[in-house]
């Protein structure tokens, strides 16, 4: 009590530091009268509501008044001056519950049949963007289908499909500017597609041939392109998250009008790097948008065995990051949210977290058979009634921007294109032997030159034991 300073300084100090930093959502709710939540939120809100109004009320007359003269218990409750802001005491021993009875709500724009739920969608999409988004989703689906088959036929060694997550891919990509730096996890080829990465370039990466930008050094779906501002995928989970903070830090240093967008899955949120990255981003105040593809499964681990919190959206608040949960199968909702998040991130120079609820319709990868650990009905349900591509197709067709005929034509064309790309990539030579030793360092050092020489000599001596389609050079 005595710690309270009389006058407006005390009240505003409290509201500014404590309320604004830690309980932003509470502050907005403190002004609302009706409360929808049960549990601690309500009580605390009422307390703070009365607390704030009382402070403001008494501050006017209270400049020289005796603070100890109060007729209410609330007045006697003191606040602690603690590093980071004042902390009000309470006489009631109350544990914050581990979870709320009601889960955080999920933002959506379209219903399951593609009808807009509200009369005024936040972002206006014009025909060009909508058609590009839709055709991007179809292209992604087609590429996944053909390449998955190619892997099953033994033509490539490995692949990861993005079935079911096309809306997260294309919806977020469409909301970004080309200057925004993207750090993907591995299930976001749609972002590259949107930015102009060609089908042939994708397939070259899957085959690891000499046209591959990565020069045949990484597994399929571990793509990256400097030109398109997409950093190369690194296999270990969550390594991209602290790197994203570094990239955002670099953007902040250069004062660029751009942000970093990084993707990760529900399983990835268990990694230590996820937590440290969110924490860093909040403390360093960098422009970064985190997009979590909560698709329900991490290989065979369902989310109920991955964490016990209400998804990932609530974790943002723990680090002081504004967060939102969106329907990941509703491309317009994803688009709207990313546009708003990006704006917030850049103008306020702060991190934002988006959790997109979606479903991994395909297997984790070609090395996985998900029917072994989840019911077929579940997969079917999401494949048919919650399919992001069909939902958006209905919306686009109703707008008159797409037709059944265009659909069948487009699908046929794209499928042919992907197959053609596969045939071309298959015939293209693999990257030459030199690329095994280059780019390890800036310039090839002597020990690697020696090793290269040794390898070439060995191949020359025993050509029958080595693959024929790798050019040896001199």
């Amino acid at each position, binding site marked *: 009590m005595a710690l309270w300073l009389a006058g407006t300084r005390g009240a505003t100090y409290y509201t500014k530091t404590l309320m604004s930093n830690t309980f932003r959502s509470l502050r907005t709710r403190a002004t609302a009268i009706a409360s929808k939540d049960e549990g601690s939120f309500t009580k605390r809100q009422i307390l703070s509501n009365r607390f704030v109004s009382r402070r403001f009320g008494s501050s006017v007359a209270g400049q020289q008044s005796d603070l100890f003269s109060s007729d209410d218990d609330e007045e006697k409750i003191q606040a602690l001056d603690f590093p980071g802001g004042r902390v009000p005491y309470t006489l009631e021993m109350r544990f914050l519950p581990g979870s709320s009875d009601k889960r955080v709500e999920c933002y959506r724009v379209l219903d399951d049949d593609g009808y807009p739920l509200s009369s005024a969608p936040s972002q206006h999409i014009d025909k060009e963007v909508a058609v590009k988004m839709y055709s991007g989703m179809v292209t992604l689906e087609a590429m996944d289908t053909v390449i998955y088959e190619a892997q099953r036929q033994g033509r490539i060694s490995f692949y990861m499909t993005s079935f079911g997550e096309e809306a997260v891919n294309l919806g977020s990509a469409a909301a970004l500017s080309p200057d925004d730096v993207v750090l993907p996890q591995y299930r976001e080829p749609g972002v590259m597609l949107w930015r102009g990465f060609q089908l042939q370039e994708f397939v070259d990466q899957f085959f690891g041939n000499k046209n591959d930008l990565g020069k045949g050094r990484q597994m399929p779906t571990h793509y990256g392109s400097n030109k398109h501002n997409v950093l190369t995928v690194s296999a270990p989970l969550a390594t991209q998250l602290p790197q994203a903070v570094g990239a955002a*830090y670099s953007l902040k*240093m250069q004062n660029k009008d751009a942000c970093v967008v990084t993707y990760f899955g529900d399983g990835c949120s268990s990694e230590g790097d996820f937590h440290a990255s969110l924490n860093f981003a909040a403390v360093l105040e960098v422009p970064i948008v985190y997009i979590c593809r909560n698709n329900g499964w991490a290989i065979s681990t369902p989310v109920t065995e991955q964490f016990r919190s209400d998804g990932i959206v609530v974790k943002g608040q723990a680090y002081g990051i504004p967060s939102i949960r969106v329907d990941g199968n509703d491309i317009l909702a994803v688009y709207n949210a990313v546009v708003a998040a990006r704006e917030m991130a850049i103008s306020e120079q702060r991190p934002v977290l988006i959790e997109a609820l979606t479903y991994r319709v395909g297997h984790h990868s070609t090395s996985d058979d998900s029917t072994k650990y989840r019911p077929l009905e579940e997969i079917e349900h999401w494949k048919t009634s919650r399919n992001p591509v069909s939902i958006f197709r209905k919306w686009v067709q109703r707008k008159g921007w797409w037709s059944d005929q265009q659909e069948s034509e487009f699908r046929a064309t794209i499928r042919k294109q992907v197959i053609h790309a596969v045939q071309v990539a298959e015939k293209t030579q693999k990257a030459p032997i030199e690329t095994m030793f280059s780019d390890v360092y*800036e310039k090839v050092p002597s020990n690697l030159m020696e090793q290269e020489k040794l390898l070439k000599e060995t191949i020359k001596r025993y050509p029958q034991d080595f693959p024929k389609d790798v050019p040896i050079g001199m």
Partner: protein
Amino acid sequence: MSSIFQAVGAATSLSSSASFDTKKFQFSSSRSLLGKRASCVVVRCSGAKMDGGLNQIGGRADHLVTNAVATKADTPAASTASKPGHELLLFEALREGLEEEMERDARVCVMGEDVGHYGGSYKVTKGLAPKYGDLRVLDTPIAENSFTGMGIGAAMMGLRPIIEGMNMGFLLLAFNQISNNCGMLHYTSGGQFKIPVVIRGPGGVGRQLGAEHSQRLESYFQSIPGIQMVACSTPYNAKGLMKAAIRSDNPVILFEHVLLYNLKERIPDEEYVLNLEEAEMVRPGEHVTILTYSRMRYHVMQAAKTLVNKGYDPEVIDIRSLKPFDLHTIGNSIKKTHRVLIVEECMRTGGIGASLTAAITENFHDYLDAPIICLSSQDVPTPYAGTLEEWTVVQPPQIVAAVEQLCR
């Protein structure tokens, strides 16, 4: 000549704001270098040009400077400069190098725990945050893997971060980022993204710091492809290696030693950059080649005094470059002396000495008159008790005994 060595520094410093005539300078300073310090630098060339831009300079003009052995310094802290130069402690030398590079290139930044306003746990970054601001000298929360990852991400976007581990042992937490990303992303991205980071920090056995704070990380990191490792041991080479590491486009790990931060030496006023892949000839000799680095260099030099009194003439080389080894300098020495003693602080198993032994055996087997002796710490966690700790580290009497055994 060693002038080529100096020219290496000159080439890279030509782009700096130095207004003096660097070439003329380097010549004169090299002469006095030979005269006073006798630590001549051999231009070696196994062809490894890991520093961009040094390709044409430190080229294949390899020859040993033989007349430099005339005077032998018995303490490593002898003065070096032709001009008066200035005296400073090793951590100040590191800071000077760091500051010069930050001044020269606005992309250079520092990140780590307590590096900003606190000035760093060993004062290496003292005064930099007030001068360059909070953003360029960044205090991070405690998550080594994450701020190392952050440095890598920033580097891929064009910055040149120096990541400080408060103690090398903590960088074990950053192993994932260092191995899987730092060393690899330039390669796996097809050369599209480069990672010019410098990861540095104090390591080695200190004074009763306990096992977890006495780690020798060079053993664990040496296998990672794509990184370079150097260890500094004097203020002179600390500053030169720091600058070289920052200018290199490869990721470089700079190993400092907890006990060497307060070494005092007089270093040149003029700017110089050392070669990351070169070893340093500390004391030329004829009878035996002693290879060492970091703190052990001083134990070796102490033993050398005793050995000289006993009539031996040891050649002491501070290998400095831990990855890759400067096999040129080392080879030339072995071809002369035919006997090798390696003195290191790493554990017996899998340390730098183990790799060096293998490399020498592979390359110079025919030149050896005796098996290589490698003196290392035992394979035990470093004890806290002072006496026990002393016994885990190689001491001068052991070095003397080993040389006597080698030269029997």
